[in-house]
């Protein structure tokens, strides 16, 4: 199958995976997606006629280990590129080492660290839209449909800051107002006592939580409010990998969530979503086909898939033959302008900005209807555009 290649040496891709630590739920699914995508790539003849070999290293969701893992990929496994990292602090911790080791580092983290230009030329985020763009595109719909006075609850942690920094201006731009910002320390396991801080005149409660305590958060919100509650809008991160059919979550019925890619197969499900679901082994409810109790991180993990196909695309257009072509590979990535919806990009079409290395795509807003979610609105790409100041291409390679 790899007949036309000068060499059948595999292309090695380092997958930096949160197998353990607080990111483990995501890591597990990221790994499944990566395996599925690589299988397809290899079945179709690999990249430039060479098979792709996936090398997985666990970073323990820890920035120090993350940096070590990047070093290990670069110098021991001698991979051609590294991808996959989710948690912001791990990305930020490992990025400098990737830059210095001249190792292409493609993350799937949503964070604004890539798009804001604070990392380096070797860091890319082609598979998933950054939080700033997500938030910007949500704001108009929120203010128009749910209310103008917004209270936000977010983790006092990197991921939360992207929301904290970007939501208020976006809401304000729509004539709304963020009336209270409640930062919850990342170590918190119980939230009830933060809830009274929510002003009574709040129209919309905007919540975003990560980590294992998310379910507690939602449950306690339910206990607190009962049936009289403001409109609630959340980022799906709060219930990623969590079964919506859990009795405690009944309270979420009628609330809204941002989803990168809709967990429940929609009526107008695209053929690409169908194909992608089948390849990864996810059923129509977003759970593992093997175990319906094993819920995926569906709204995010597509980013891994799209990143892998982006790598393939760029390597092919660069005629990538080995590590000496890394610069060409980077430039090829930067030269990408858009992705079309299709098998390689099942979430939808995207614009890619080669200057700040960030992709911009459509976002979904879904409503919880009796333990499933249905998309009620899909934003346009333009909704999420903002002025890009960063320019990595000015940095040397």
């Amino acid at each position, binding site marked *: 199958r790899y007949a036309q290649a000068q060499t059948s040496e595999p292309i090695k891709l380092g997958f930096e995976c949160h197998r353990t630590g607080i990111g483990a739920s995501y890591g597990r699914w990221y790994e499944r997606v990566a395996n599925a995508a690589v299988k397809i790539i290899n079945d179709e003849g690999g990249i430039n006629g060479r098979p792709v070999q996936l090398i997985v290293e666990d970073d323990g969701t820890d920035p120090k280990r993350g940096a070590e893992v990047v070093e290990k990929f670069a110098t021991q496994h001698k991979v051609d590129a590294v991808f996959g990292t989710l948690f912001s602090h791990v990305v930020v911790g490992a990025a400098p080492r990737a830059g210095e080791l001249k190792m292409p580092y493609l993350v799937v983290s949503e964070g604004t660290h890539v798009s804001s230009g604070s990392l380096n030329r070797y860091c890319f985020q082609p598979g998933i839209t950054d939080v700033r763009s997500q938030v910007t595109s949500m704001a108009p719909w929120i203010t128009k449909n749910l209310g103008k006075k917004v209270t936000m609850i977010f983790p006092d942690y990197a991921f939360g800051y992207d929301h904290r920094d970007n939501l208020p201006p976006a809401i304000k731009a729509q004539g709304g107002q963020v009336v209270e910002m409640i930062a919850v320390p990342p170590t918190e*396991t*119980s939230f009830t006592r933060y809830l009274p801080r929510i002003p009574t005149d709040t129209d919309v409660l905007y919540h975003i939580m990560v980590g294992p305590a998310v379910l507690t958060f939602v449950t306690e919100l339910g206990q607190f409010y009962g049936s009289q509650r403001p409109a609630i809008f959340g980022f799906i991160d709060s219930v990623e990998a969590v079964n919506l059919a859990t009795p405690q979550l009944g309270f979420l019925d009628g609330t809204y969530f941002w989803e990168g890619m809709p967990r429940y197969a929609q009526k107008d499900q695209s053929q690409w979503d169908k194909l992608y679901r089948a390849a990864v082994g996810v059923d129509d409810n977003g759970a593992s086909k093997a175990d319906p109790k*094993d819920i995926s991180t569906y709204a995010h993990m597509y980013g891994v898939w799209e990143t892998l196909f982006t790598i393939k695309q760029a390597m092919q257009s660069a005629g990538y033959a080995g590590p000496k072509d890394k610069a060409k590979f980077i430039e090829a990535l930067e030269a990408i302008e858009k992705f079309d919806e299709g098998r390689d990009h099942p979430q939808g079409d995207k614009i890619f900005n080669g200057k700040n290395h960030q992709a911009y795509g459509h976002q979904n807003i879904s409503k919880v209807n009796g333990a499933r979610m249905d998309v009620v609105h899909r934003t346009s790409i333009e909704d999420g555009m903002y002025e890009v100041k960063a320019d990595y291409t000015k940095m040397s390679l």
Partner: protein
Amino acid sequence: MAFGPFLLLATLEGLLQAAVLTLTALGLSLVFGVMRVVNVAHGEFYMLGAVFAWWVASMFGMHPAVGFFVALIVSPIIVGAIAFASERLILKRLNYDPESTIVATIGMLYIIQQTTLLTYGPDARPVPAPFYYRIQLPWFGYSGYNLFVIVAAIVMLVAVWFVLSRTRLGLIMRATQFDRETAQAFGIPIERVYAFVFAAGAMLAAIAAVLIVPIRQAHYLMGLDPLLLSFIVVILGGLGSLRGTVVAALLIGLSDGIISVFFSPTLAKMISTLLVALVLVFKPEGLFGAKAR
């Protein structure tokens, strides 16, 4: 929300945390007090308690209450058995040397935690509460189950207090902690006492975990927080003082909740941690400790 209700809520939450913390800390205190073993794996016994509760509850899926109460009995027993075995296999052979046992219990921590990750997985999983009852107060709603946890913890506490201060077992345990050799010379089978104490300590943590798991979910990393807090409570309360443990747990439970009425959460945590640390600095023997050891 007005200040009063806010305070009420913070207090309720503080009581809940204090209740669970007291039970967990009591287990640690027992092990530390009697065996002089700093059991770093204590939090993992707590975690195991929650995980086994999930496991039992999902096996007895007929009614949440059935699953829960079976778990309340079965889970601590399994955890106790695991603790018992590890005491026999590891700690005993180390002769309870303080430094070695720290390393060994860190090792146990990893073993338990990672085995859970391999088998149970990285997700947080809920256990249904035995009953669902929401108390609607004029300002907010509150879970009736939370109040049940507080009461259950108090009942457990009284039971432990009775055993420690009113029974022979308690006397034996207190004697053992001062002088192992002399205790043996008076017919106390210290090996059995130690294994029992270690298992009992773990079981207390497991009970606390089963009580809390309908509110907090079982997760393989959930052990760290209770471990650290328990240590603080045990030392702050004064070693071996049951009353101290309760008071310290209340203090810890209530302080950052109430302080967070006035400050932002992270700042509140900073201030309350600092305050508690300073209490210890100026009263190193703990609030109710006899004297510094």
